């Protein structure tokens, strides 16, 4: 059972209150972008065994979108954070570096 603490209402919500929103921090490439950027945006996703950053929505709850960092291998949750950001907060990255030395995810390490 996955428990994620919603940063907006503070509830430690279990999976059935939540809806997964896929990979976090995607940058949208739309009309006018190069074919490579567009196909990268549209089709390419991280699929790590280990540290992953995702979007989740507290759908059966306060309704807010938020971000979560967790380990896909162990289901350990490193933390959740605001949706209003384009990258994970530094203190969370430090926590993950300490727990998973050498981890890498896209351009983060």
């Amino acid at each position: 059972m996955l428990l994620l603490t919603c940063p907006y209402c503070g509830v430690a919500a279990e999976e059935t209150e939540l809806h997964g929103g896929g990979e976090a921090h995607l940058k949208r490439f739309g009309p006018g972008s190069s074919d490579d950027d567009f196909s990268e945006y549209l089709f390419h996703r991280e699929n790590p065994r280990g540290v992953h950053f995702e979007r989740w929505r507290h759908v059966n709850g306060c309704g807010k979108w938020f971000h979560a960092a967790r380990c896909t291998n162990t289901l350990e949750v490193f933390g959740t954070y605001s949706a209003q950001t384009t990258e994970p907060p530094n203190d969370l990255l430090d926590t993950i570096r300490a727990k998973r030395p050498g981890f890498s995810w896209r351009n983060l390490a």
Partner: protein
Amino acid sequence: MSDVQLALGGASFQGLAKIEELPGQGMVTLRADLDDKAVVAAVKDVFDVDMPGLRGTSLDGANGALWMSPDEALLLCSYDEAQAKADALADKLSGAHALVVNVSDARSVFKLTGGLLREVLAKLAPVDMAPGAFEPGQVRRTRLAQVAAAFWMDDAYSARVVCFRSVADYMFGILSNAADENAQVRYF
């Protein structure tokens, strides 16, 4: 004023807890920044209650305010006053980034009464209903079985559950089932 048309005509069930469909609960949804002093003051003016904090309730007689999210509150009042209060609040907030809607007829409200109401809710919602973990003064938006709902305890022996009117029949069914006299768990 025309008669209130309840979804289930005021259904009730007596089991581990008493389940009653409440006649005409006035409910006004407010979407706005709940930390905005102008919003807090307008709610105080019209509903005469303080804005509750995170997942809090602020109840005073028929009036009340429930914290739904950082930018949403459900305001309670008598059914007959709901539209006038919604209009008055919308008027006061006309200059703010805010939305006010009377949702009294779009929701159904069930009252649960009895010492075992924690058990009834715990069977249906993924919420820790242990005394101390959930108490009067708190509101929880969640799901009850398969439908979205919000509930709060008015005191140790009574709680109210709000859901969409369209699922009132389902809600009454699952609440009654969870309150079946032969289904006591005695966990709390």
